[in-house]
């Protein structure tokens, strides 16, 4: 018993240290998402122009749902990627849709005038839709496939490469 114990004691901290090492080497910025792979929550929101819009009412094969705000600096950084997406992809294939996150329509309009872009942005009063999508902050982008499932979620500014890779993979699934 004594001999057994003596061998065991130095080994004891190893599992604890392993657990600690695992915890400390994880990137705390990367938060788990429960919603990827699930059906996208339905929403019924108004665009800045005053039109009513639902997810089910969109007929594009892929929806790029981009949560953003005019006060969000990384949103400016990713903006050209979204502009390019609307230029490169056909509307029936890819629909870029903005969801305004804790911002005023006036701020959003100024932003779009300044940085360009033709796609619509819906208002999200009470942040209900953002909470429905499990949004932590902006920018966050959801890639919704033809079955209206959330295929990917991107946290932080998008690059054109990331956007293109994800959209193309979703378009490839359904066949061109």
């Amino acid at each position, binding site marked *: 018993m004594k001999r057994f114990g003596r061998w065991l004691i130095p080994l004891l901290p190893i599992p604890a240290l392993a657990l600690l090492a695992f915890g400390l080497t994880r990137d705390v910025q990367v938060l788990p998402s429960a919603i990827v792979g699930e059906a996208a929550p339905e929403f019924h929101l108004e665009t800045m122009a005053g039109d009513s819009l639902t997810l089910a009412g969109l007929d594009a094969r892929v929806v790029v749902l981009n949560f953003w705000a005019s006060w969000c600096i990384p949103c400016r950084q990713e903006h050209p990627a979204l502009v390019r997406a609307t230029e490169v992809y056909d509307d029936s294939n890819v629909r870029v849709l903005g969801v305004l996150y804790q911002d005023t329509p006036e701020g959003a309009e100024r932003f779009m005038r300044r940085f360009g872009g033709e796609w619509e942005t819906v208002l999200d009063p009470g*942040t209900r839709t953002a909470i429905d999508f499990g949004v932590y902050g902006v920018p966050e982008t959801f890639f919704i496939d033809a079955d209206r499932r959330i295929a990917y979620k991107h946290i932080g500014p998008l690059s054109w490469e990331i956007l293109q890779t994800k959209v193309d993979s979703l378009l490839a699934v359904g066949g061109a």
Partner: protein
Amino acid sequence: MRRLALLVFLLLMLAPESALAWKQEEGMSAAEVDQLSAEVAAQLRCPVCRNQSVLESSSGLAREMQSVIRDRLASGETPEEVRAYFVSRYGNWILLKPEPKGINLLVYLLPVAALLFGGVLLYYRIRRWTGATAPGPQASLAGLEVPDADPAPTQEGRAAEPTSPDGDGGLSEEEEEWIRQQIGSLG
């Protein structure tokens, strides 16, 4: 007259109750909804803060989440259902206290296991320590060097030496032998 006053008083007492009746038909009073939503909010992690609950946080998102909690409770959902909604959107991460299931059980069981193990270890250690000193002089004198005649130990030095723990105050054979030697060298 007095009876009338009493009646009026009682009616006044009942007034707020009846004013709330429409709420109660739905299940809870406004105060109960507030109370319950505060409880649920305290269990949820604010997504934009570090280790602060939705209740404590003053961030915009946490405020909106509080109103979502209140609306859902008021519409008849149970606190479990409201929690489940947030878990379905944000994952288990949103719960400040992980549910005791699967790998999460480690969080609950490890401290208890460590405490038990430490207790058992300590018990055997203490038993060994006391067991080691109990037999007396042999053990404690094992490391005792018998000093040479020069320098002669002082009174202080003697006090610092281990003495037999059974408290008989007597000298061990080796000590007696040493004293005899000292006396012999003097003589």
